[in-house]
């Protein structure tokens, strides 16, 4: 395993601390924002478990910003997320599991020490490769991307229709939107060659990203492709927090501590999301 991880490349020692620090700060921002944006719409009906999760999660997120208590904060967040996964089981989204893994890695490793710090970065990078590779594999094995059947199935959702409207005829969109998913309904197919091609491209990109991230020469372009792909998925599916989480992880593949420049923009985005949930900014649909 270590030999495989070594192929993910290594930054100069002095860069890894700043790189991991920036990653940790953005991760804390994402987690804190997600906890609050989930809680705000249900403020009047929060149950005890969610109140405890929100309170403890917020404390640990704040601690994660202070470098001295950061390891304790990650351990605390790992415990909070185990409790959350248990409480919500099996409903939690995959990104809650990914967050838990990241917290656990960062709590287990002494990131003040170079060897542990390097392993922490590689562990996160490896998980990105696992997520992309298996996302592609799963799309291929179930066969719902061969003729864009999956995209057709999603057309009863307004934001999916809006994203595909430029490529699908109005009659076909109306037909798909009217299908109710009842036995005998169908066919869930889309005649647009562009949409069928996009269906194939989606798993091909996911397949391709992992090996491209491994090769030093293609690493940066792979990060750009992956971020572009995630951004496209966000437009259609609005799985915003999963996207932000993966993009934060992807930035670890960039040489040096380039991700330091993302901390302030990330903070601005998080504030905007919370203000959107509070109704100060226009409401936006995101999960």
């Amino acid at each position: 395993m270590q030999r495989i991880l070594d192929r993910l490349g290594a930054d100069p020692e002095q860069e890894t601390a700043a790189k991991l620090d920036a990653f940790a700060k953005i991760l804390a921002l994402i987690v804190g924002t997600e906890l609050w944006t989930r809680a705000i719409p249900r403020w009047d009906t929060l149950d005890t478990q969610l109140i405890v999760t929100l309170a403890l999660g917020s404390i640990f997120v704040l601690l994660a910003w202070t470098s001295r208590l950061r390891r304790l904060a990650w351990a605390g967040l790992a415990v909070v997320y185990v409790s959350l996964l248990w409480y919500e089981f099996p409903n939690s989204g995959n990104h809650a599991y990914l967050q838990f893994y990241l917290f656990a890695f960062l709590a287990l490793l002494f990131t003040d020490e170079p060897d542990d710090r390097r392993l922490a970065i590689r562990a996160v990078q490896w998980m990105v490769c696992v997520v992309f590779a298996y996302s592609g594999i799963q799309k291929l094995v179930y066969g719902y991307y061969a003729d864009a059947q999956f995209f057709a199935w999603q057309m009863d959702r307004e934001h999916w229709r809006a994203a595909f409207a430029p490529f699908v005829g109005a009659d076909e969109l109306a037909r798909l939107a009217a299908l109710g998913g009842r036995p005998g309904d169908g066919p869930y197919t889309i005649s647009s060659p562009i949409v069928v091609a996009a269906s194939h491209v989606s798993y091909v990109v996911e397949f391709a990203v992992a090996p491209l991230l491994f090769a030093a020469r293609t690493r940066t372009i792979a990060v750009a492709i992956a971020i572009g792909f995630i951004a496209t998925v966000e437009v259609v599916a609005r799985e915003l927090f999963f996207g932000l989480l993966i993009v934060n992880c992807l930035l670890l593949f960039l040489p040096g501590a380039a991700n330091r420049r993302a901390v302030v923009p990330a903070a601005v985005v998080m504030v905007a999301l919370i203000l959107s949930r509070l109704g100060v900014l226009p409401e936006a649909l995101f999960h």
Partner: protein
Amino acid sequence: MQRPINQRIVLIALMLLTLWPALHIGLVHARGLSPWKLSGWGMYALPRPKFFGMEVYVDRGTGSFEQMFAPTPDVRDAATTFLERQKWLGELASIAPLARALRASDPSIGAIRLEVFRPELDNETAMVTMRTVRYSDPP
């Protein structure tokens, strides 16, 4: 030099997290687990059913099963929880809590049979078909 224990734990965890999605795919095929959940990274790989249905049949010691139409609130809650878990866990969802609620609501209930209906998109025909999963307690 031996690697510190914390590094070994992380490396073992990475190996397990790399193997788990392969097992997850197997469970999707064999036991109807949903690819959307449980860290298999199969979100958006398979259409999510738009509704679920369930019929409950009970044997009140007569040797024949009759369909239950008017569940108590506790039974309805247990049935809702079971269906929600069945949606993601497929055949791995346990019917034990629902069976307990049923027997608590009516001690004369012996054997229980459940039929869960879930519409599925056939990827060959692109048409929706109905899949029925049957459960029995005792098995």
